[in-house]
């Protein structure tokens, strides 16, 4: 599996109306991640599956990945497993060959640590800053979707992908 772990793009702050769950992307977040997707396109990234958390900022970030999704057979799935710390249930649920998972910190860092390093116990203080998983960043992994079985191929900050989109 080629796996792309994506942290959602920049979102508006919570308001009494939206709460945390319904925070939309900012215009800048949308624009920047749109350019990042063009950067991914230039890198030849294509997807047969996109999984995303149900929170609005993840849904909207996943929406921006649609140009990379196969026209025939590409499919998207919403899962609350991407709105919480990584569990076996997530690994059992995810299928496909070229898959994007769109989620939130600290969970995307925890997922990265689980898949590459096999870490199952997460201590936020210890892991803080282990990965600079800023908003809109993408980690590319390859291998079997099991704890400790994936190799980190690349880690792209949002700025890097946006620069790629210009060339």
């Amino acid at each position, binding site marked *: 599996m080629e796996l792309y772990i994506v942290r959602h793009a920049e979102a508006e702050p919570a308001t009494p109306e939206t709460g945390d769950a319904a925070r939309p992307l900012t215009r800048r977040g949308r624009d920047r991640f749109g350019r990042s997707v063009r950067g991914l396109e230039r890198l030849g990234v294509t997807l047969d599956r996109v999984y995303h958390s*149900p929170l*609005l900022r993840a849904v909207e970030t996943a929406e921006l990945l649609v140009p990379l999704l196969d026209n025939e057979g590409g499919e998207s799935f*919403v899962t*609350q497993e991407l709105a919480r710390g990584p569990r076996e*249930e997530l690994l059992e*649920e995810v299928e496909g060959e070229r898959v994007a998972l769109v989620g939130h910190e600290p969970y995307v860092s925890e997922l990265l640590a689980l898949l590459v390093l096999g870490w199952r116990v997460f201590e936020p203080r210890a892991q803080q800053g282990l990965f600079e998983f800023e908003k809109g960043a993408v980690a590319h992994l390859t291998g079997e979707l099991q704890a400790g079985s994936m190799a980190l191929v690349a880690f792209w900050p949002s700025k890097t992908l946006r620069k790629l989109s210009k060339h």
Partner: protein
Amino acid sequence: MISPREWIEHLNAHAEIARAGDDPEGVHHVRVAAGRLSVWLELGRRHMLRDDLRWLRRSAGPVRDIDVMLARRRDGDGGVVELHAELHAERKSARESLLAALASLRFRSLMAALAWAPDLDQELARDTLPKFERRVARASSALERAPDDPVALHRLRRALRRLRYALEWLGSDASALKRFQDDLGDLNDLAVMWRRVHPAPPESTHASAHASMNGDASASDLLHREIEERRSRFLKDWRAARIDREANARSGRS
């Protein structure tokens, strides 16, 4: 702005009814609500959640098809009564699959995501409407080229349904489309039943039901005749309506 709240509540309420299992309308309305919400998303040019809604509709489809067939039973018809025992057994299995879907994390995640989805901009929805109209036009042309093709008929039915839902989301009158959609829906229900009782491999239990119907061929003949009559009637009415639309368009009337 166009809010999906009413149809999200409708979906939730009918998922409960479908779980209870006493009223087949629960399953039917889970499919209707999922279809309407999918069109709402498409009007907003949103892709995410549509595949999840399609999965939900497909989860409920087998139960719905069997409910429709059971509702058409003719008492005293030996062949159909034999098929009924098999249909009831299949319904039990299909219902278990549906219940699993309604209890699944995917369903809960879908409902959460829908609850947090922002309302749809009316102007954007209006700008997207022509896409639905073009789809109906393409499906109609394909049907003209192959009027006996059930796939072409199915594609038109689907396109009409989505256009009708789109118009209703926009607050426009879709009663004319509803009539055609209902006609095609009835025709599809008959076709599903026909495919069910049509000759099956000898080793299957369908053979006994079909043999019963064939021995007394009237039930099978009647069904086939009804399908052909309804199809002819639909095509005639649809062509007449299309000619009217084209004439109105040429004269500048809506």
